């Protein structure tokens, strides 16, 4: 599958100006809330109309401002899963799902057959006559999926589908969704602010910030090297510092750390990041004295808030994630491998 999106729209207080291309089957738009990722999805579905641009799904042009092409959402054959699921509250599960094939004008028998199939696959048997408010959150999502899948869409658009769910349900539904995507073999775009979700569901990820795509690369490569400060924050890196480059050295502005400049180094690099997992008391490289400010217990790890002794006053505290078994009281030094430093623009 390939999808090409080039969309510009001025909302007054916010400008959407995205431009990206994907060749993969499961892709994600990762961004903070208000970054424009949902707007992008709505532009693909035809719910909002860009001022100018070009959108094609698998070679099929759905929007082209130059040639005055703008297909109605009804003609784009996209399956859009809303964050709120958008089930019609006045209709039963069955009526909701059948809305997905009204466009095909099938006879009663064929409708029944397809309905029975999808209800079986999504394990909604016995709930056919229930209204949406009589269903659990997980069931509601499966109904929304059934309603979309019964109509054979060319592409699935997921708008933060798991963010309203509790931890347990989220993991289960992520797995279910992944399975369904695989079973139906329909390409999908996932919009999310959650790095775990993106990491486990998407082959390729574009990071959106303030209406613009900052990075677009395979998901594992993105987490390995986010390239940009904003992207690094979204991938969950907790510690960042600005830098200066002098001769063959990189000087951290706030942490008071100096490392050797790597051979391949772009002049655009202005920041560095070190993940909370990358620190270690036994690491000799960049080892420095620390002051521990606080230890926050988490279910399986400890989050240690600390500062380097030589760290500039007024600068941000740093975070170290470590196994619960480690006695942090005895730790007086922390180091990290130079190779673990994320070089960021």
């Amino acid at each position, binding site marked *: 599958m390939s999808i090409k999106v080039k969309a510009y729209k001025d909302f007054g207080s916010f400008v959407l100006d995205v431009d990206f291309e994907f060749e993969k089957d499961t892709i994600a738009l990762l961004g903070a809330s208000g970054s424009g990722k949902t707007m992008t999805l*709505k532009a693909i*579905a*035809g*719910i909002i109309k860009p001022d100018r641009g070009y959108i094609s799904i698998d070679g099929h042009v759905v929007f082209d401002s130059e040639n005055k092409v703008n297909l*109605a*959402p*009804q003609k*784009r*054959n*996209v*399956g*859009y899963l*809303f964050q*709120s699921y*958008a089930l*019609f*509250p*006045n209709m039963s599960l069955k009526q909701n799902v059948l*809305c*997905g094939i*009204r*466009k095909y004008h099938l006879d009663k028998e064929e409708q029944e057959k397809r309905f029975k199939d999808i209800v079986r696959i999504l394990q909604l048997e016995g709930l056919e006559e229930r209204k*949406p*408010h009589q269903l659990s959150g997980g069931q509601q999502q499966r109904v929304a999926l059934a*309603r*979309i899948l019964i*109509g054979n869409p060319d592409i699935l658009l997921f708008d933060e589908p798991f963010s*309203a769910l509790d931890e347990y349900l989220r993991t289960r539904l992520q797995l279910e969704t992944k399975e369904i995507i695989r079973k139906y073999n329909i390409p999908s775009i996932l919009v999310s602010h959650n790095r775990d979700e993106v990491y486990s569901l998407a082959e390729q990820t574009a990071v959106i910030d303030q209406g613009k795509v900052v990075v677009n690369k395979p998901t594992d490569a993105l987490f390995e090297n986010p390239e940009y400060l904003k992207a690094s924050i979204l991938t969950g890196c907790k510690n960042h510092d600005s830098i200066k480059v002098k001769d063959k050295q990189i000087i951290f502005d706030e942490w008071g750390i100096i490392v050797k400049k790597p051979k391949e180094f772009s002049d655009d690099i202005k920041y560095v990041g070190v993940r909370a997992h990358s620190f270690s008391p036994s690491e000799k490289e960049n080892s420095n004295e620390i002051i521990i400010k606080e230890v926050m217990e988490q279910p399986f790890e400890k989050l240690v808030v600390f500062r380097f002794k030589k760290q500039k006053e007024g600068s941000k505290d740093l975070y170290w994630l470590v196994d619960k078994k480690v006695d942090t009281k005895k730790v007086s030094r922390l180091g990290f491998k130079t190779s673990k430093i994320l070089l960021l623009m």
Partner: protein
Amino acid sequence: MDLFPLWNSLRIAAISSVIIFFLGIFLAYYISKLPKVAKGLLDVVLTLPLVLPPTVCGYFLVLAFGNQSPIGQFLNNVGFPFFMSWRGAILASVLVAFPLMYRTTRGAFESFDDDLGNAGRTLGLSNTYIFWRIRLPYCKNGIIAGLVLAFARALGEYGATSMFVGYIQGKTATISTAVYNYWTIGANDMALIWVLINITISIVVLMAVNLFEGKKKGNKRVN
């Protein structure tokens, strides 16, 4: 006792309500989609009868449809006059009661969850289907409340009606004009009977409104 005023009031209120129902939904829907300035302007114009004294509305009706106006003369010639006719009372009731339906319906439409409409469109449902089968049922309670209020207002219309169609026994007499006329001729017991009939109908109508509004709260979606 001549029950004509009761029957006349009910038929005027009923026909007005039907007109107001469709007109209100139609205008509320299309105006809610207009750009801000046009919306504000039309809002003012359409709500005006609610705040103007009914006599002012009556005056405008006489001006537009009275025997002196071209429209009035034309209607007289084709034998379908509004002035001093029970049909005119429908016009007066629609004009005065319309804002109640319009405003409540617009409020209901504005509370509609746009995601539902968008979901319908991406599923390939036609805009007509979405409007009648998803948007209207969603806004049902607000629309019904607006309609009941408009019906009650139409039933109690006095000012514009008495100016425009007067009080002709057996022709244009309504409950409210009957009360006034029995009182002016000193038939206080008759006036009282019509007052009691009016109060009874009003109580029933208001109870119906409360019933629908109570239901609306209970039906809110839990997310």
